[in-house]
């Protein structure tokens, strides 16, 4: 039980632990449920929509679903030991999701949070501490949330050497940096690299929706994209339109979206200029752009000439989408690279999409998800089965 030096502890005590338990243990589920209540009751919760989302996520009723889905009573699994999480700096509540993964799989956790001092982080950590000091004292062995300056590579090195698993958020650059530090020979890394996500919409099915249903779908699309200013790795940048009447469909879809954006989105001035700059840059440099439609700077759509596998470089932000019409789903093969993470869809049967993966054995596409659920984290994420990765499987014959 070594003490860590040169760090700031936001939650938990100052010792390091390496304890294991069975996954989805009752006490941990209760812990998150109480935390969920406390977060929901926070007096200024309305200021932080992401706090509401994470509170909703860590309700016991929700986490039980994961238990039912993943816990297999015919198999013995137990936590790996110490999990070191490197949380992303620009999604303030993400560390709590990461903790849920680590704790429910039965591990001790050290979570490094960026030095940006988000309110959400302070609020959550204070509530966690409250629980750890009272009813959940024994969870101190499993939860530690820390901050230290990135220049203190020694700390990263030291914790890495003790860890049985690391969860590295933050894209290519961070993964590269953290991977320089060795972990134990039998330890595992879950690395979340830079990804690209797309969306496919069946135009015929979309047209057949009633207006209210169309609006609902467009709102879901908004949630997938504008919530994180289109920066989430699972937020789509390229929309593929499948079928006939495409001109009409696109016009309806984007106009409805522009209305939603007008009502729900606050684009600040500096982002407005940056967004326009990105547009100018692509128009000047990308030779694969056919045409452009601007909906009041709140929404850009750029049609591309050809579906090529370099589309994963076509990234928009703050409501800036590329689009292309496809005749059949087989065309997905043209853009198939390992970069592609989430395919959100509307108007297709699960089985049709499953077939593409099975028939064409794609290199990319880790998630096939209905529009509206792009940002919903799950124990299967980015191609990893996190539940398996963070537990040790025991074979008894």
């Amino acid at each position: 039980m070594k003490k860590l030096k040169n760090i700031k502890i936001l939650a938990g005590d100052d010792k390091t632990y390496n304890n294991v338990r069975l996954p989805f243990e009752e006490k941990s589920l209760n812990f998150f449920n109480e935390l969920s209540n406390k977060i929901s009751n926070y007096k200024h919760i309305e200021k932080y929509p992401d706090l509401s989302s994470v509170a909703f996520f860590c309700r016991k009723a929700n986490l039980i679903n994961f238990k039912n889905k993943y816990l297999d009573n015919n198999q013995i699994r137990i936590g790996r030991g110490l999990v070191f999480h490197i949380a992303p700096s620009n999604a303030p509540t993400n560390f709590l999701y990461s903790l849920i993964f680590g704790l429910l799989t039965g591990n001790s956790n050290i979570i490094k949070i960026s030095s940006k001092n988000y309110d959400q982080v302070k609020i959550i950590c204070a509530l966690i501490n409250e629980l750890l000091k009272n009813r959940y004292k024994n969870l101190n062995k499993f939860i530690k949330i820390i901050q230290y300056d990135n220049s203190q590579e020694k700390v990263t090195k030291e914790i890495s050497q003790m860890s049985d698993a690391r969860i590295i958020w933050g894209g290519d650059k961070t993964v590269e940096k953290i991977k320089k530090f060795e972990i134990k020979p039998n330890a595992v890394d879950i690395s979340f690299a830079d990804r690209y996500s797309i969306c496919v919409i069946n135009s015929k099915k979309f047209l057949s929706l009633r207006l209210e249903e169309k609006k609902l779908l467009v709102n879901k699309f908004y949630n997938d994209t504008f919530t994180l200013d289109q920066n989430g790795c699972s937020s789509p940048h390229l929309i593929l339109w499948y079928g006939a009447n495409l001109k009409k469909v696109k016009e309806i879809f984007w106009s409805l979206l522009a209305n939603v954006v007008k009502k729900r989105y606050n684009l600040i001035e500096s982002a407005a200029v940056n967004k326009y700059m990105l547009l100018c840059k692509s128009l000047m440099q990308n030779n694969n752009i056919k045409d452009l439609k601007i909906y009041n700077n709140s929404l850009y759509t750029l049609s591309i000439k050809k579906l090529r596998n370099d589309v994963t470089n076509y990234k928009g932000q703050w409501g800036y989408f590329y689009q292309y019409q496809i005749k059949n789903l087989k065309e997905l093969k043209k853009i198939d690279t390992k970069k592609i993470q989430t395919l959100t869809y509307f108007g297709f049967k699960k089985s049709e999409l499953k077939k593409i993966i099975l028939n064409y054995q794609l290199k990319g596409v880790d998630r096939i998800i209905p529009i509206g659920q792009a940002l919903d984290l799950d124990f299967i994420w980015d191609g990893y089965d996190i539940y398996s990765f963070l537990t040790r499987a025991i074979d008894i014959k």
Partner: protein
Amino acid sequence: MKQNIIKRIEGYEKIGVVKKSFFPEELKKLTKHHFNKSKEYKKLLIYNKYDLNNVKLNKFPFVPTSLFKEISLKSIKDNKIYKILTSSGTSGSAPSKIYLDRINAQNQTIALSKIMTTILGDQRLPMLIIDQNPNVTTNTFSARVAAINGFSFFGTDHEYILDSNGKINKNKLRTFLNKYGSTKFFVFGFTSYVHKCFFELIKVSKYDFSQGILLHGGGWKKMESKKISNQLFKKYLIKNFNFKEVIDYYGMVEQTGSIFLECKYCLNFMTSYYSDILIRDKNLNIVENGKKGLIQLFSLLPTSYPGHSILTEDIGEIVKNNSCECSNIGKSFKVHGRSTNSELRGCSDTI
């Protein structure tokens, strides 16, 4: 662009053509010029289905200043590059690069001198520079050095009073004031340097700047963090150092030369024959006078790069119904600082 823009504007002035009538026509010519000379700029206009015959000020296409950090935008061949101006850029980002040919650089100097005569008169004055001697050896200049060089043109007997550590050399200052302090002289510096320097001086002893005309500008960010308003700063300088005049200016490295001087009377920034301004909201639509928004600037000087109509990240407002005599030439405006940077959301960073 056969005849030089400076000559043309002189011509308009002579025969009394008002700015309203020549300015949009000149912008139209410039837009066409860059359309023909810069293939990147041409693409931008084609995708936006821009009508090259437009003469409405609010319909001219604009380029965001940050684009000069991302792409080399030139309307000249590489062998015509005479000077490259660079901006310091926000930390971590690449600097802007502005490519000048000989004519463009020359026009900047001439336009600047025409604007400067209004405060300095026709004669060159002994000049005190609140900075280090830049000792330029390449053809690439930072915005700061470019400004120092540009303004130095209006001075003689230049004295740079900061040493290599950024400290004031008080001996040099005293010598300068003893020698030139009894008649009109010119003081120039970046706002944040001027601020630091004079706050340091006040602690030492009294200096007499009663014949000094101080021009300062730029260096936004540092000033904002100190939360001192321009007006308070001006009062402070006049009260403690007895300055004859303290004048703030606003300008962009993308439009060097056509700077905006503060009006002595109404204290707003003035547009000149070479420049104009519009204010846009976050949807990039025009806002009415008196309302705040993003500053779009026009300059008739840029011929070697498409920077004649730029969208800045600064927030400002056009003064509504300004009755001051400075508004005879054109609009006057206030600058409220940089738009606050958006925090990048998402999961792609851990710094």
